[in-house]
């Protein structure tokens, strides 16, 4: 208790401003400064002189607040810019923009329905393919996989997430599309042709190819988040079910899946959000033809890919603002989808899972 009182002696200027406890450390620092190079010590002594000043803490705190608020600012700025730039198109077409199916830049007629259809169908197709696989892999990695394989396999699935979209597209164009054109397509036509979803003409570049490539791309998202959610289920839930004599599947079904279903739905919606906005890979394999067809082997077009393809070539303000309005729609839809997903995942991860049923 005596020591602090002896310290302040060599720093008289501090005594005026600062409360007694705050003296010990700056003193220690002055010793340190003496050993550092001259240039640095100027900065340091300036900082030291100011560091305990009245404004230092406040200034730093407000700087951090500004950074945090800039996250809001970014979102607001994006919304503002998108709305203001798409005004001409909003005025011209109103809600009809989303209900009509003519997309004719030459005559100035713009309707976004074919793109909405393409985005929804390709994303749903991707979710339909990816979800069962992702859940199966999560279960495999959590409960079945031998320990030595767990690390490598989860690393590999995470690598899938690190591959850029354009590389998926490249692979899609040169590998996937020919396979779907020559091998998978004819088989689907033969056995599932009666549904009307798979029919000639089959060029390979199609809604189906887009769905497959999207499924590969959203798989890591769904798999890793649903695995986290399943892992959040308390161990005694599992043990309790096992103690009742359940098999592994029954334990998973009753103890794990039922408890984490909200989070799993959240992960699926997050994957859906990713699929809705995915641009490059889809643009490269979907065929880019604005039409609404039941045939999944026919080319389609999505919201994101029409922007990617036509934005730089858009002549005239109306054309450009129609494309920006599509971007605005995409933005709002993904925000809503992501918000719902985040809320679901949060609700689960916060520990509501332990609730009994």
């Amino acid at each position, binding site marked *: 208790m005596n020591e602090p009182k002896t310290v302040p002696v060599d720093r008289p200027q501090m005594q005026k401003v600062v409360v007694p406890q*705050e003296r*010990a450390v700056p003193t220690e620092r002055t010793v340190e400064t003496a050993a550092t190079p001259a240039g640095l010590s100027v900065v340091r002594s300036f900082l030291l002189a100011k*560091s*305990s000043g009245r404004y*230092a*803490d406040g200034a*730093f*705190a407000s700087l*951090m*607040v500004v*950074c*945090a608020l*800039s*996250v*809001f600012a*970014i*979102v607001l*700025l*994006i919304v503002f*810019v*998108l709305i*203001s*730039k798409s005004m001409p198109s909003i005025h011209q077409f109103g809600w009809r923009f989303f209900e009509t199916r003519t997309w004719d830049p030459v005559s100035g007629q713009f309707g976004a329905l074919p793109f909405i259809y393409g985005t929804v169908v390709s994303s749903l197709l991707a979710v339909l393919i990816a979800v*069962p*696989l992702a859940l*199966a*892999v999560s279960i*495999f990695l959590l409960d*079945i996989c031998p320990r030595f394989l767990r690390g490598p*396999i989860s690393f*590999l*699935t995470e*690598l899938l997430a*690190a591959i*850029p*979209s*354009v*590389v*998926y597209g*490249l*692979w899609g*164009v*040169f*590998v996937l599309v020919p396979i779907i054109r020559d091998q998978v397509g004819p088989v689907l036509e033969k056995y599932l042709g009666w549904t009307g979803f798979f029919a000639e003409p089959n060029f390979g570049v199609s809604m189906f190819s887009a769905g497959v490539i999207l499924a*590969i791309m959203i798989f890591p998202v769904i798999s890793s988040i649903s695995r986290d959610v399943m892992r959040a289920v308390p161990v005694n839930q599992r043990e309790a079910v096992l103690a009742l004599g359940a*098999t592994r*599947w029954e334990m998973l079904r009753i103890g794990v899946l039922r408890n984490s279903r909200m989070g799993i739905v959240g992960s699926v919606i*997050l994957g859906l959000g990713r699929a809705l*906005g995915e*641009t*490059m890979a889809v643009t490269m394999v979907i065929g880019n033809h604005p039409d609404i067809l039941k045939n999944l082997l026919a080319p389609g077009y999505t919201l*994101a890919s029409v*922007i*990617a393809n036509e*934005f730089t070539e858009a002549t005239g303000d109306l054309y450009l603002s129609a494309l920006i309005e599509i971007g605005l729609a*995409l*933005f709002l839809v*993904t925000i809503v989808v*992501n*918000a719902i997903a985040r809320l679901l995942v949060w609700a689960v991860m916060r520990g509501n899972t332990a609730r009994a049923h």
Partner: protein
Amino acid sequence: MSPLPVRSRHLERLLELRRSATNHAVTALAVVSTVLVLVPLVAIVGYLIYKGASSLNLAFFTHLPAPVGEKGGGMANAIAGSGLLLGLASLMGIPLGIGAGVYLSEYAHGTWLGSAVRFTADVLNGVPSIVMGIAAYALIVARQQHFSALSGGVALAIMMVPTVTRTTEEMLATVPNPVREAALGLGIPKWRTVLSVSLRTASPGIITGCMLAFARVAGETAPLLFTAFGNQFWNLFNLNQPIAALPLQIYVYAISPYDDWHRLAWAGALVLVVMIMIAVTLVRIFANRGVLKGGH
């Protein structure tokens, strides 16, 4: 104790069999699915290495793109352009993201504003990259009336912010509170505690987060389509001119009808993926070693 329902042994045995059969079926299904998922992964990576490595040579790293019909050529300008764009994006996005993360963890713990910022960051994370491109186009390109490296950098920076923010916050949360309290108890002002104690302790994790954000935007093409735009020639210093980027060049070459360009696209893709993989692997090593264990 109520008596158990009467059931024939036969029925019970059947039930038992069905349960174990279901169990085995599900196990088999999970194994098969995992194999099925690993196939495209191995196919993509394998094909990429096969195609990319066979067309990769020194010229790829040192030469400008060759005109159509001419053999050879490389993507030197695109590699440099990507470097410049990413540097620009990191310079803008990382400090902003770290600042917001510090605010969330050190100042806004449990406040209403903190939750709102966190939620906004999460949502921003899910916004399609092409929308970022449009925003940067409308903000900068439309105003300046020409495509520029600066606008590309801004688009990428915006994409980095939410990732950096969230990882910074998560990593700062692992710093045990007694460490902060000890610093504050010594009379160190709060800002100094945050900088020299909290941030420093959490720095391996924060670096990890920054690298992840970096790796994520390194492969982005969509936001650059109408901001950085691409360039067939060198642009090293002029932020007001269009600039080439590796992912952009890959896209242009992939959809072109020329075999020679396809070859270059594969080489570019291999280089891009290897660069990203190195970043991600470094991050994993960092994360496994450096990240500090939370308080007890």
